[in-house]
């Protein structure tokens, strides 16, 4: 299994921090206007959540892995619920690389693989280097063509 770029933890961390900050602010506001318990409640909750977040992101990063098998792209991820997905190359409809602003800032990219399935219809591999993402996309495209689907449904 290939691991993701370790920088992806920073990306996840930033997103999580924003969420934690918002939640902290909400708790602070509730405390201020309704509960009147202590002004430290909001920051306290935020710090606790942030700590949890750090642990969770570390665990998530460790759990992530992808591999190009001879018949399928294999993914493995999840902390609470471990999920393994196999996407046979024959079933690949198209492959994208995506780079959001945060990704570009951190020099990351992600690959999205689309199938016609109902559940695993789009599979995302985050936290790759840009050229790594491009390479993976091209590789997946070639593998999808090689496996020669006439009608990938």
């Amino acid at each position, binding site marked *: 299994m290939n691991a993701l770029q370790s920088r992806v933890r920073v990306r996840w961390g930033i997103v999580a921090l924003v969420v934690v900050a918002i939640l902290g602010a909400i708790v602070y506001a509730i405390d201020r206007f309704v509960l009147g318990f202590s002004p430290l409640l909001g920051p306290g909750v935020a710090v606790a959540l942030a700590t949890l977040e750090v642990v969770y992101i570390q665990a998530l990063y460790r759990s992530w892995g992808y591999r190009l098998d001879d018949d399928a792209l294999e993914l493995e991820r999840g902390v*609470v*619920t471990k999920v*393994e997905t196999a996407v*046979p190359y*024959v079933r690949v409809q198209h492959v994208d690389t995506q780079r959001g602003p945060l990704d570009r800032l951190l020099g990351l990219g992600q690959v999205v693989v689309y199938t*016609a399935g109902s559940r*695993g219809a789009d599979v995302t591999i985050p936290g790759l280097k840009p050229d790594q993402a491009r390479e993976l996309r091209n590789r997946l495209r070639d593998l999808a063509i090689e496996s*020669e689907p006439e*009608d990938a*449904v």
Partner: protein
Amino acid sequence: MKLHPLSAVTRSLQRGLVAASFAFFVTAIGQVAAPELLGSFGLIAGLFVLLFAVGVAYGVAYYYRFEYTLTPDTFDVYSGVIGRQEREIPYRRIQNVDVTESLFHRIVGVAIVQIETAGGSQTEATLNFVAADEARRLQREIRDRRARAREEAAEAETAETSEEATVEATAPSETRHADPEAVADRLSREGDLQPEATLFELGSAELLVLALTSFQLASVAFLLFGFPIVEDLLVGLFASVTGIEAPVDALTGTPDLAILVGLLAVAFGVVTMWAVSSVVTFLQYYGFTLGRQGEDLVYERGLLQRYSGSIPTDKIQTLTIQENVLMRALGYAGFTVETAGYSPGQSEQGPQSAIPLADRERTLALARELEPFDELSFTRSPRRARRRYAVRYGLVVLGLTALTFGLSVAVPAFGLWYLPLVLLVGVPPAAHLKWKHRGYCVGEDHFVVRDGFWTRKTRIVPYYRLQTVIRQRTVFQRRLDLAHLTADTATASLLGRQDATAYDIEADAASDLYELNRDRLQASLHGGD
């Protein structure tokens, strides 16, 4: 070709009225913004007429700007009044052709035709509406042309493979049909396809059983809106006949009484819902027939509104055998087939009922005609899964009790907080039944899973239709060495429908199945089965 001329009339009336109703909206806003300007009746009337005319003009223009053609390879639709859209749908990619006739349509003799392909977020082509004969002709014509296109492709394929002298890489969807014998067989009856042969007809006894045993969710909505009205009517009627005001307030005087009355109301609601869905089902499946024409299944159903659809047998993704408690008790079952044509949200037609109801043996035999699956013998989840369900249900009951206890503290004169505890008696049987009806079966060509007590669904997934294979384990499952395994296919993911998932099976078995499904898919693709 154009739509039925009458469609211009109905559409312009429709659009005209919609546009004209906008006049009231505008005047309502105007009233608030500038009351002195909009005093005159003439202005409103003028606006009304103007907008109506615009709507009518749009409706008429739509008719003149809409055209469809059957070309040798594609079905073309040119449409759009202002923004033009030219769409060409290759016959080979068409999944379903549906014909719908509402009561009005049937009186006038017209029908709506809908053409579905895989992918896309909505119906790919809608002809609203054409003459009923034309609709049937289109359905037949598209079917024939698709069959011909497929034959040509298969021919090219066999020519190619014989040149290469290898038997590899026939197209996935064609694997079963592209073997030389089948092609020769089909070429021999090239062009003129067999006349429609009836596979199944829903008898009146079966229709009654179906109506009485089905429980449609749609009736919940009906009940939600209809119940208050009906209730008021009943109470009003009671009062006017007997002269006694129904003591509604007295009934809900204390919380305890309210709970008991509520329970009674729920029971009453369930019975009503059942009655409503019986009627709805009866109307929907009245005169159901399933026929075979070439490679396609053609069904027709409905009393007031008639539906007719075609299901290409070689595009079947999964086949689901459905039996609810009552059907099981009476020895009946039905099955639906799923193609990739419908998109999420089209719950009305989504999975198509191939056989709504027949006795179990017959259903299995008919299902096997479409997907020749082996004898089904299910492997159940290990017993510790059953314990898991019991714990889960127990926690739900305890949670509910905690909630009612909290309520009883907050609300005075509410003493029946322990009522939910009665449900604890039901936990062990419920867990057992859930466990008992879950299972999976690994067939030669199919992966089969089964789930559900109230409505047991047996999903039959051919290996060559697999899209992705997913194995997942939550923290609790890991502790018990259990896992879920999902074999995903390209069926439209309708709201509230699950995939073919084997729940809570041994973790090792799940790993094996994970590999096995992938191997079998590869094997079926390369004709190595």
